């Protein structure tokens, strides 16, 4: 959820072999793709944040809403507690580096999520646990090239094509539109190695909070599912919040 919380971050999940792109295709006058990614990453990765968010999951049959509060520290620690609906209330998730646990109060069990379970949906949304687990910056995971310009949300954007440069990236390629001024990713497609479209992301609303631009409403869509996507809304976010270190322990899941 941390990635989604940061908006741009939810898009981040891999890296690219920039050297493999032909220079002739690079847009004339554009800044270096790597420099754009560096600005995107800098905007996305913050220190401590506490946020309350809502996911509206618009499935094939009906729509439902899931509310959660997240405590996030840096790029690799997060703790999330689900608040609504009643059935999900009290479910907690803890991410420490590349490990993820979930706790269910009904069963009083803490379960490590690993292997194929990582590819499953988070609360039935269009986001997978794998999306949540990505803690590398875009620059670390992808090589990039600027291929054009587009307008998204009435904002001029650079179009960047990213190709994974690490073997374990969740997506082999991505196409992102980055706000030229705010360096936020406003729209994205993620692809498999075969070129098949896997997921899309589109920002619907952006708000300035402190000195950061935060996408407060965005839509994720799993292209392999038949639903209408998941709307992700950030209700409140507090940057540089004080978070006790004890929260990021397995023991805190059962409290």
């Amino acid at each position, binding site marked *: 959820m941390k990635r989604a919380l940061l908006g741009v971050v939810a898009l981040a999940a891999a890296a690219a072999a920039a050297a493999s792109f032909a220079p002739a295709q690079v847009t004339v006058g554009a800044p270096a793709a790597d420099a754009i990614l560096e600005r995107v990453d800098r905007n996305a990765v913050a220190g401590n944040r506490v946020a309350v968010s809502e996911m509206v*999951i618009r499935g094939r049959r009906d729509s*439902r809403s899931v509310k959660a509060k997240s405590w996030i520290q840096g790029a690799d620690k997060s703790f999330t507690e689900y608040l609504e609906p009643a059935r999900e209330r009290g479910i907690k998730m803890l991410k420490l580096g590349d490990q993820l646990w979930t706790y*269910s109060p009904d069963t009083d*069990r803490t379960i490590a*999520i690993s292997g194929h379970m990582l590819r499953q949906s*988070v609360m039935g*949304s269009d986001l997978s646990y794998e999306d949540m687990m990505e803690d590398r910056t875009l620059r670390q995971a992808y090589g990039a090239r600027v291929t054009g310009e587009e307008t998204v949300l009435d904002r001029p954007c650079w179009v960047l094509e990213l190709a994974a440069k690490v073997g374990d990236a969740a997506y082999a390629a991505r196409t992102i539109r980055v706000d030229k001024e705010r360096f936020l990713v406003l729209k994205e497609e993620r692809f498999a190695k075969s070129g098949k479209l896997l997921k899309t992301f589109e920002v619907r609303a952006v708000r300035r909070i402190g000195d950061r631009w935060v996408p407060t409403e965005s839509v994720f869509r799993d292209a392999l599912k038949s639903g209408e996507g998941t709307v992700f809304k950030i209700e409140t976010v507090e940057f540089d919040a004080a978070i006790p270190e004890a929260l990021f322990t397995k023991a805190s899941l059962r409290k």
Partner: protein
Amino acid sequence: MIRFLFKGILRDRARSLFPLLVITAGVFLSVALYGYIKGVELDIVRSNADLRHGHVKVVTRAYAKDVDQIPNDLALTGAAALIRDLRLAYPDTDWLPRILFGGLLDIPDAAGETRAQAPIAGFAADLRSPGSPEIGLLGLKKILASGRLPEKPGDILISAELAGRLKIGLGEKATLIGYSMHGSMSLANFTVAGTVRFGFQALDRMGVIADVADVQNALDMEDAVGEVLGVFRDGLYRQDRADIVARAFNARFAGSDDEFLPVMQTLRDQPGMALILDRIGDSTAIIIGVFFLVMSLVMWNAGLLGTLRRYGEFGVRLAIGEDKGHVYRSMIVEALLIGALGSIAGTVLGLAVSFYLQVHGIDISGMMKNVTFLMPTVLRARVTPASFVIGFVPGLLATFIGTAIAGRAIYRRETARLFKELES
């Protein structure tokens, strides 16, 4: 004449014993093979009907399209009302709510941490409602290896093989990690009430059975079920009957294209079942047909030989004034008598073996290690009404034809040559 011929058969064993033995053996093999093949056929159909598909099945239209993926997000909602309607409309059919589910079975240690974990293939049925036929249909009492059947909320049965792999004992807690109807991960605790041996390799590897109400609760499927199976109370699958029921049900929803409306399908409509049913039917017909042809030839040959051996007798009977037509007819009646006696004896023996195989079966589990579809590991014969009469086809017909053809020699018999033959 029949009484006279019958006495002749009994008193002149040199003449009747060999044909009688051949016919008895042939009919015995025919009846036993027929019973065995019918048993295999019925077992496969019944296993698939009772365990997986029913004779007819109601799902949503959307579920039917992706049925291989067991899409519980496309399950039937308003299941209680639907089942009530079906029971009223088709009282001669048991309507059974079922949920298929996958996931992981996670066994905790003393600290609640994962001690063991394994993938499972589960199905939920109505195991606790009074009067539910599921315990009988699933044969749970027969396959129970240890413990007891589910009686309390949260009780589950798991395959004995899976229990051994997970090192979990009776009464211990197991957590199902599955996916709810809304697609989110769901955790639910169950108690292992017993272990079972399904007799199907695919289920014995990872099978779990739970009560449908518990699984509805675990997977957030309130008043929803994946499938409603219809099993005809007489236990026999008839395609024409299933087609009539399905057509009538589906006609009620013909005017709408809502993908979540229910649709009824027959056993034959289920993935792979048409092929299986056709293969079974074709194989049965070919095996029985070829076997009966061979047996008919053998018995025909026996009839021919028996008749030809009695060439001298014909001459004597004609010489003392018996009419050729009378000799010919008496030969045929005699052949029919021998055929009937042999058919009765062979049918009795064949039925006895079929009954034995119906009760005890043949265990072929050693050959089923890698089989993934529902195929019984104990093959049993079945005695059907046809088993009582099928042996009379080769037994009577072939003997009759053999004698009728060979007996034509009677009309070519010349009494003038008889004494020369007798002198030599």
